């Protein structure tokens, strides 16, 4: 028995490390990726990793960049900031990558932001927090839309619906805290009164007690800023309590699986998101349409899994680096950074990217759409 276990262990180690090491080829361009493929944020990192593997595979099959193959080195950080730091050092010093894509979470990105800046390695993060690009670092970029746009979109929609008093609930994660902060920051400016603001544990499995408290305040709407599992539990608990006020969620709701998990309770949830989720419903002449549909169809055919916003952030990150490599004449870290900063009008899944020396997110308010759930499908909110 012990022998069998030992053999299994060794086999696991070999296959695991072969996956991590990839092939080394002198003529190739190395891009590092630090993604939370497993662990608590695997719903972000896993689709990101799959997307990037697919993009690089297709690019290499089509001849790479000017005949040079791309070698993508994916490191699984499991959403652990310490691991992210050591992987970043390893990728920069040992693997000599030209740029890093990821990490998946804001906490990890903030940990390696200064590191990449001091080593002068371009970093294109897949994480949402505004702090990644504000204050700005010369080598750090990010693909998801800013939290502040999301908060402003939610408030704009509320004004249209004549909502005045709201309850804000958020999970105790970096994502939840950042979102709650943005909501509190813009509330008075947008004429919305937050009558109750609460934080709950990210692993909470039942929130009826909290929602009873929110309900007792007589709110016109509830905003929930969290990721799984709470964003599917909150709508269920609200319906079970008989609360019939509108529920707004963050852009973290952008995965049809969460709608399935909330079932009928998901109907009517309002949230801002990029256009990937409604790619099929976009008008034919929309500048993002062709890219969105191409990515969606390729991903869904290859992995037999519906696309999510998060895979889209990964797609944007790797595509932007590839675009920068194509435009760069020097093919070094400095050249990629300069080339990234000069990208404009690039249609990604998150919106049309226009990087400038002052804007390393490159997306405007119009990159988001208000979406809702109708008959278990994402649709435009009208």
């Amino acid at each position, binding site marked *: 028995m012990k022998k069998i276990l030992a053999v299994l262990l060794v086999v696991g180690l070999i296959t695991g490390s072969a996956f991590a090491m990839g092939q080394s080829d002198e003529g190739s361009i190395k891009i590092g990726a630090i993604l939370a493929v497993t662990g608590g944020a695997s*719903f972000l990192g896993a689709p990101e990793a799959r997307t990037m593997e697919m993009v690089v595979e297709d690019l290499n099959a089509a001849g790479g960049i000017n005949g040079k193959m791309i070698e993508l080195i994916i490191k699984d950080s499991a959403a652990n900031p310490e691991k992210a730091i050591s992987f970043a050092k390893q990728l920069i010093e040992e693997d000599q990558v030209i740029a890093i894509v990821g990490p998946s979470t804001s906490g990890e990105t903030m940990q390696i932001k200064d590191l990449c800046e001091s080593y002068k390695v371009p970093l294109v993060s897949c994480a949402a927090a505004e702090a990644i690009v504000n204050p700005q670092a010369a080598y750090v970029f990010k693909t998801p839309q800013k939290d502040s746009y999301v908060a402003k979109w939610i408030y704009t929609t509320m004004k249209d619906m004549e909502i005045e008093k709201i309850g804000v609930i958020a999970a105790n994660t970096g994502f939840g805290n950042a979102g709650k902060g943005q909501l509190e920051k813009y509330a008075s400016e947008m004429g919305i009164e937050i009558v109750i603001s609460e934080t709950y544990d990210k692993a909470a499995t039942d929130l009826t007690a*909290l929602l009873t408290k929110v309900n007792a305040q007589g709110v016109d709407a509830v905003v929930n800023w969290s990721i*799984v*599992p709470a964003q*599917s*539990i909150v709508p*269920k608990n609200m319906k*079970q309590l008989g609360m019939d006020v509108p529920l707004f969620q963050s852009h973290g709701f952008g995965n049809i699986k969460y709608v399935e998990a909330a*079932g009928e309770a*998901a109907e009517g949830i309002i949230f801002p998101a990029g256009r990937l989720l409604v790619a099929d419903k976009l008008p034919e002449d929309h500048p993002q349409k062709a890219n969105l549909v191409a990515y969606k169809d390729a991903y869904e055919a290859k992995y037999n899994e519906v696309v999510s916003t998060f895979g889209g952030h990964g797609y944007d990150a790797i595509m932007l680096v590839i675009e920068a490599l194509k435009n760069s004449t020097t093919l070094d870290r400095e050249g990629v950074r300069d080339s990234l900063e000069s990208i404009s009008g690039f249609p990604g899944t998150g919106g049309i990217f226009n990087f400038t020396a002052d804007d390393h997110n490159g997306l405007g308010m119009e990159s988001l759409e208000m979406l809702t759930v109708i008959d278990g499908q994402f649709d435009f909110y009208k």
Partner: protein
Amino acid sequence: MSAEQVLQYIFAGITVGSIYAFVAIGYNIIYSTTGIINFAQGEFVMLGGMISYSLSGVMPLFPAIVLAVIITSLVGGLIENVFIRRMRKTSVMGMIVITVGISILLREAALYIWDEQIRALPFFTGSEISSVSIFGARISPQVIWVLAVTSVIVVALFFFLKFTLSGQAMRACSENPSAARLCGIRTDRMVNMSFMISAGIGALGGCVVSPLTQTHYAMGSDLAIKGFTVAILGGLGNPIAAVAAGILLGLIESFSISILPMAFKDVISIAILLIILVAKPSGLFGSSQASALKDY
């Protein structure tokens, strides 16, 4: 606070408390026969939810749940056979480390088999949006299912331990393993059975709560901590006290939310737990004589 709101908080507390209780019962059954704290207990809950979800794709819901419970108890039995039995010579601390290892193993296996997506069984009666009004407070019909299943488990466990030969043998192992062996009780078989029963109860819990709480491959570790707290609160080794302690903790949490920000929930519940343990180190319903016989 109106009467309806008080009732609403009570229901919320009982629901959460029953979930804790499912995990705590499992801790206690294994602890009482082996003296081991099995930190993989939360993973049994996860496995129950995951397996029944997969099976419900190919068969009706109830056979799927029954089969999921059976499969999970076999997994529990297998774990005992492969890991626990062979390593019995190690210290209590060593055993704890092994169970933590098993929990990681099960979690990673679940990630490999089911991926990182969350899943939920369909509601047994009604749907996500149905709710029942009881004296003005609203609850999901699924909560009634959870409470019913918890009650059935408590009653069944009581009769099993009290009146069946196997149950009495298990209790004998719990009282004094050496004396039980001298009386001709196959202690290793009892240990195996305790793993199977607690895995099965955990899995059943995982199935009934899945529509409410959803199932995720990594849900086990959080449940394990809360369940462990409840098991200690009730008095280690007493499965039925665990249910009372679980519901008590759920109610404390629920009412603390009603008056203070939710962020303080765990601080309050842990503070109350510490006060109880200082006053009564063997737990609310534990006997100090029984706990003196244990290794820790």
